[in-house]
């Protein structure tokens, strides 16, 4: 805008996973501004369509077009600002809130001074994921978001009470590849969430069906046990940076991949602890005691 403000507009939604922040970061980097200077408008069907917030694809799908659009806007801005600095547009860069002549400290104007001299009230550009790097199509189908897949590995440390059958997960170490980490704090939070959900279905979550009618008898949060604060282990997240040239931002999804390895890691740790393989989830105290031969196997796995 002529007043120096910057808006990102997309129909993508933020379901708590932080795409609003990431979009501001990506656009701010390209325009040489602080993320807090970017107004992100999302979650409205009037806006250009964005990806759905599922399938671990939001960041991977919407940050490349955001970066491309920001780059296009910047080219117009530099073109309009070039005469003010007696330079050619190609010699200019946006950095630290200023438009500067590259390699010539001192010859610069602020971002707002540059936008004040725009030929139009605003510069806008629209970009699409398919604009860059051939989009997200690849040979195996249209749904893929990456040229290569992600990898991750997790380790679990557990304590098993062989008298009560209670498994306590003491610690989980999650090593996760996520392409280019866009926001380390958010990535760590997402991986912690994935680990917690994996722990929850490894040990607690269980649909109990009435054997005669098939009705689920515990369809509420009173009876359907979820992991809570007391069951939360120490979670250590290690993020691997792995650049594959997948898109303009090289971002990948992180949510579901971090959920995959937790239950197997816990099950393997339980095996190492008690020497018996548990082959059903959830690994409840009844399942543990039955595996240890300490009780008649009764309704442990409905």
């Amino acid at each position: 805008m002529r007043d120096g403000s910057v808006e990102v507009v997309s129909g993508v939604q933020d379901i708590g996973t932080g795409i609003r922040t990431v979009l501001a970061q990506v656009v701010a980097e390209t325009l040489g501004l602080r993320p807090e200077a970017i107004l992100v408008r999302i979650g409205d069907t009037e806006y250009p369509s964005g990806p759905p917030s599922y399938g671990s694809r939001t960041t991977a799908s919407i940050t490349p077009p955001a970066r491309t659009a920001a780059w296009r806007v910047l080219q117009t801005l530099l073109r309009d600002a070039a005469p003010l600095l007696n330079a050619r547009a190609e010699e200019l860069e946006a950095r630290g809130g200023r438009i500067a002549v590259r390699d010539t400290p001192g010859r610069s104007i602020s971002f707002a001074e540059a936008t004040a001299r725009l030929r139009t009230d605003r510069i806008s550009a629209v970009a699409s994921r398919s604009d860059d790097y051939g989009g997200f199509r690849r040979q195996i189908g249209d749904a893929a978001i990456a040229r290569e897949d992600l990898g991750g590995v997790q380790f679990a440390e557990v304590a098993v009470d062989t008298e009560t059958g209670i498994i306590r997960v003491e610690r989980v170490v999650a090593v996760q590849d996520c392409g280019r980490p866009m926001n380390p704090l958010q990535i760590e939070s997402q991986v912690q969430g994935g680990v917690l959900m994996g722990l929850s279905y490894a040990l607690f979550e269980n649909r109990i069906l009435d054997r005669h009618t098939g009705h689920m008898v515990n369809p509420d949060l009173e009876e359907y046990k979820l992991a809570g604060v007391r069951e939360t282990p120490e979670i250590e997240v290690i993020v691997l940076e792995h650049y594959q040239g997948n898109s303009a931002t090289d971002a990948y999804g992180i949510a579901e991949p971090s959920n995959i390895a937790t239950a197997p890691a816990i099950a393997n740790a339980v095996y190492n602890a008690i020497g018996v393989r548990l082959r059903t989830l959830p690994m409840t105290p009844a399942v543990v005691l039955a595996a240890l031969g300490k009780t008649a196997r009764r309704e442990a796995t409905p």
Partner: protein
Amino acid sequence: MNRFAYFRPQTLAQAASAASTTVASAMAHPMDSEASASATTSPVIIKAGGIDVLDLMKENLLAPSVVVSLAGVGGMDIIEEDADGSLRIGSMMTLASVGSHPLVAKRYPALSAALNASASPQIRHMATLGGNLLQRPRCWYFRSEAFHCVRKGGSQCFAIYGENQYHAIFDNVACAMVNPSTAATVLVALGGEIMLVGGRGPAGNVPGVVEG
């Protein structure tokens, strides 16, 4: 949830004359048995903290035409010490306020411990001791609209031959559900008595804790 009228009496006598039945008997003897398999139509229900009554209503298990709130009745949220050293606890006291009361902690630490470990902090600050004792059981068949069990006017207990890992292992011939009240267990162990005020007779003391 169905429509219902809301009545907030100021005195115990008004409340007692307004309420015609208990939640338990209203659910066990539905007036309109042609209605849905389990939603119970009943005329007047008393509500204290509302933790269980509102759940039952939202789950379509209870459909009162009038809800009588005890929130406006004074004098039911205090603890008094009798001459013999026993405590008289108002039924409208919350679990949190009974659990943290110094006299209770000193005289009956088991009651304090049990109440402070009940449910969650939010519920403990809303639920009353009276409502806690009168809450309906947490049997998942009882709590499911899909099962018209003996406690809801049906003819059988589904838990006896069904999913019963959390049910009674003794005295379960007619119904296998267990009393869900943490306070009830302790009060029975302590030899507690309940003082009732009813519309059908004078106030009296009932030894022990009545059925769940």
